[in-house]
């Protein structure tokens, strides 16, 4: 088929789908699910009810003990008291989540021991996907402004059935603050430094206004940071070192904008992201890498009846992720100026049935193109581009039965380049008095992204099977304990593989198994959070992730993680939050002789303390905070968790920070 005909067919397909969508005008994104389960609210204490939102309804928000997923919710209050600076700090409070790096300076996450940053974890802000479409990644360090976060919900298990692409092992759902009155203004600034240099400085502004059924908000953020102040020794495994404290060598910049408009049932959101960082190229020089992203979403929600909610949603994403200018080396030069465009249309309905039952379902269609006129790495039919579509339909029913709440659903997805997947999901949850139990079976998938296909046109989707069990007890109004076990098996994992040139390959399988524990105590102004997680590698046949001589571990991530956060208020408006995170020993590649040389890095404890003066000097106006991170100046390294050619990069030394937030 000729290229011209292909383009014509794609455009026709897009137009037809949009026409159908506008005709039936039905769609709701999963974040719009409305639980409508009044009975569950009656089981909540006053304190719990005061934490429930009325605006955006979600099954898991209202019934966390009975939600059909393993979920951690981090609130604005927790973020502010803990002194978290970015998503890296926030995710330390989440069982099973760890941070590694994916090219120096670009931090990514692992879930339950498995490197998830490429295509396995979906990051949403106000319902809009932030992952790039080149590699399906996101960068977590010094990126998202924390001062404008209202809440983060972290699904620690698969979300493919309802969320689709990139949600194979988890979903990070960020909700930003919204205007509560006319001319609602918030300005915040932060400065932090190590003994040698500044660690971060930034300013964030929020303007929102709300009248009748119209609201409008603008978030603007600019941050400049350094991801370390230390020297990376032998960072390229063959003898090169670089002082990352000098010449802005570890600089990160993050201009970020989020603009939202709600007018009755219509909403419009635009996100403009200009993230960038400096990184050393192995054996050559520092280079600037940029991750530009422009996203626009329009959504119309149509309440057809009291029981049926309907909306239409269209998203356009234009991105230039992982871009860098020409890097010169002995064999010539290399650059990456690849751009991607993605058009998404989605159809979704939510139907409440008498008795607290609910059915959701929808269809989604993505058109994706990645290309570069100067780069010959993306060849398809003689063109410098890759293009494909994803089409899927999905549904999920939530039924109250005498045996508990039953959730049954799934998604059928067609990736026109790589094939089809069907991912079912089945969950049974039951609360009996103070106790609750959850049993969840899920299949999940990861479809190849633009660069996966560009490097290997024969790449296949990977498929994951996950079993999860959770038991919990509401010990008192103030204390909730939960424990969970999981088993993950990934078939045909898509793995970055370097052998002279970059490539992506389907390995046979990998997986992990483990336990997670969480204890949350809240009483008056005291909050204590203790989390623990453990994983064991199971059936890992990916050499890029494996540790020679230790089949129980995966490269880069500790088997055990424990975090303790304690927030107390010794006097009115003052909150002191000491916190510590323990990481057991980790494996890293530290050198290259005739082959990779592995080292076992010692276990570490990172300790922080944060002081928050809320409503300082003026009620409901000014918050001031001071914090010390890495109090004992531990040498904590970030590890590349696959054979990508980098040794561990040192994290920052002790950091002192101060920040102010003022509300007009």
């Amino acid at each position, binding site marked *: 088929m000729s290229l011209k005909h292909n383009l014509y067919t794609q455009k026709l397909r897009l137009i*037809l789908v949009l026409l159908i969508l506008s005709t039936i005008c039905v769609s709701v994104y999963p974040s719009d699910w409305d639980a409508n389960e*009044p009975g569950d609210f009656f089981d909540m204490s006053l304190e719990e*009810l005061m934490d429930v939102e009325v605006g955006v309804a979600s099954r898991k928000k209202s019934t966390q003990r009975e939600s059909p997923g393993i979920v951690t919710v981090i609130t604005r209050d927790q973020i502010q008291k803990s002194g978290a600076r970015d998503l890296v700090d926030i995710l330390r409070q989440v069982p099973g989540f760890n941070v590694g790096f994916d090219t120096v300076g670009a931090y990514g996450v692992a879930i339950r021991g498995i490197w998830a940053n490429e295509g396995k974890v979906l990051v949403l802000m106000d319902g809009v996907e932030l992952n790039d479409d080149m590699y399906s990644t996101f960068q977590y360090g010094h990126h998202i402004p924390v001062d404008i976060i209202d809440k983060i919900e972290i699904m620690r298990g698969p979300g493919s059935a309802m969320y689709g692409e990139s949600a194979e092992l988890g979903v990070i759902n960020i909700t930003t603050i919204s205007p509560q009155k006319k001319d609602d203004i918030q300005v915040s600034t932060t400065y932090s430094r190590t003994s040698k240099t500044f660690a971060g400085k930034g300013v964030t502004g929020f303007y929102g206004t709300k009248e009748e059924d119209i609201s409008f908000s603008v978030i603007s953020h600019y941050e400049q940071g350094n991801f370390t102040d230390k020297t990376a020794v032998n960072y390229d495994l063959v003898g090169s070192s670089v002082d990352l404290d000098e010449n802005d060598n570890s600089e990160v910049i993050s201009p970020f904008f989020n603009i939202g408009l709600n007018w009755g049932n219509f909403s419009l959101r635009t996100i403009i992201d200009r993230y960038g960082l400096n990184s050393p190229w192995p054996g050559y020089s520092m280079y600037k890498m940029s991750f530009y992203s422009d996203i626009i979403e329009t959504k119309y929600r149509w309440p057809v009846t009291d029981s049926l909610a309907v909306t239409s949603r269209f998203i356009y994403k234009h991105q230039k992720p992982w871009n860098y200018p020409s890097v010169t080396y002995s064999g010539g030069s290399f650059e990456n100026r690849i751009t991607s465009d993605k058009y998404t249309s989605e159809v979704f309905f939510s139907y409440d049935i008498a008795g607290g039952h609910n059915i959701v379902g929808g269809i989604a269609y993505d058109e994706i193109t990645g290309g570069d006129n100067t780069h010959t790495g993306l060849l398809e039919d003689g063109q410098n581009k890759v293009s494909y579509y994803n089409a899927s339909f999905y549904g999920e029913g939530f039924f109250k039965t005498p045996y508990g709440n039953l959730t049954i659903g799934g998604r059928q997805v067609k990736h026109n380049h790589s094939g089809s997947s069907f991912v079912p999901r089945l969950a049974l949850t039951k609360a009996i008095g103070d106790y609750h139990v959850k049993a969840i079976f899920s299949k999940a998938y990861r479809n190849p992204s633009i660069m996966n296909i560009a490097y290997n046109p024969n790449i296949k989707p990977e498929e994951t099977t996950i079993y999860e069990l959770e038991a919990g007890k509401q010990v008192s109004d103030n204390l909730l304990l939960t424990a969970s076990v999981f088993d993950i098996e990934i078939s045909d994992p898509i793995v970055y593989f370097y052998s002279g040139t970059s490539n992506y390959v389907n390995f046979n399988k990998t997986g992990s198994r483990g336990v997670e524990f969480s204890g949350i105590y809240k009483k008056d102004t005291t909050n204590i959070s203790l989390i623990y997680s453990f994983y064991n590698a199971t059936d890992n046949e990916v050499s890029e992730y494996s540790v020679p001589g230790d089949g129980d571990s995966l490269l880069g991530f500790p088997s055990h993680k424990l975090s303790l956060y304690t927030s107390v208020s010794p006097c009115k408006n003052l909150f002191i939050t000491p916190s510590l995170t323990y990481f057991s020993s980790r494996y890293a590649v530290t050198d290259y002789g005739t082959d990779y040389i592995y080292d076992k890095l010692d276990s570490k404890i990172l300790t922080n303390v944060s002081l928050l003066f809320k409503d300082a000097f003026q009620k409901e106006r000014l918050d001031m905070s001071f914090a010390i991170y890495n109090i004992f100046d531990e040498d904590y390294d970030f590890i590349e968790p696959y054979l990508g050619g980098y040794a561990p990069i040192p994290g920052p030394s002790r950091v002192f920070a101060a920040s102010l937030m003022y509300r007009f």
Partner: protein
Amino acid sequence: MRFQTYILVCLFSAILTASTATEVRAEPPVGREYQIKAAFVHNFIKFVDWPKEKVADSNNLITIGIIGKDPFGQAFEPLKNKQANGKKVIIKRFISLKESKLSGDQVEAIRKCHLLYVCRSEKEQLKKIINSVKDYNVLIVGDMNNFLESGGIINFVIEDKKVRFEINNIVAKQAKLDIRSKLLRLAKKVIGEETSDKKEN
């Protein structure tokens, strides 16, 4: 062929959805906000003590009255199987004073309520309603501007997308209702005693 298949799926979904839309049974509206407020109301009962004579007259029942255009729909349905302070909770609904005058029996029934939720439709009749129950130990709850100033006891407000409540403890005491300290402490605003440390944040 694949393209045609996809279009057929889209069309099928559209038809299915459209037909579902026409067959949907109209359940009474149960907005999430009022589901939450209903649960708050249930909690309020646990943290308020009524005079002994009111309790003695109530035949081991707690009566919640809702007057006006009811926004709760089926939100109180789960209370059929629950108790508050060891007593069964019943819901009674009263028509809007806008639509009709209350009969003497209805006024008596309202006065027997332990908690009366005054809906927004009654804003113009608020003072009249409050005056008619003020000597009958009724916890008057609502969610409208100037509710406490007009003689209401607990008023719901929305703050940061969450439900908060304010208390007029002066009126509560006049009605011989003893509001426990925990409820006062969690309130966003308290008129009357304990205003100084009502909110620790």
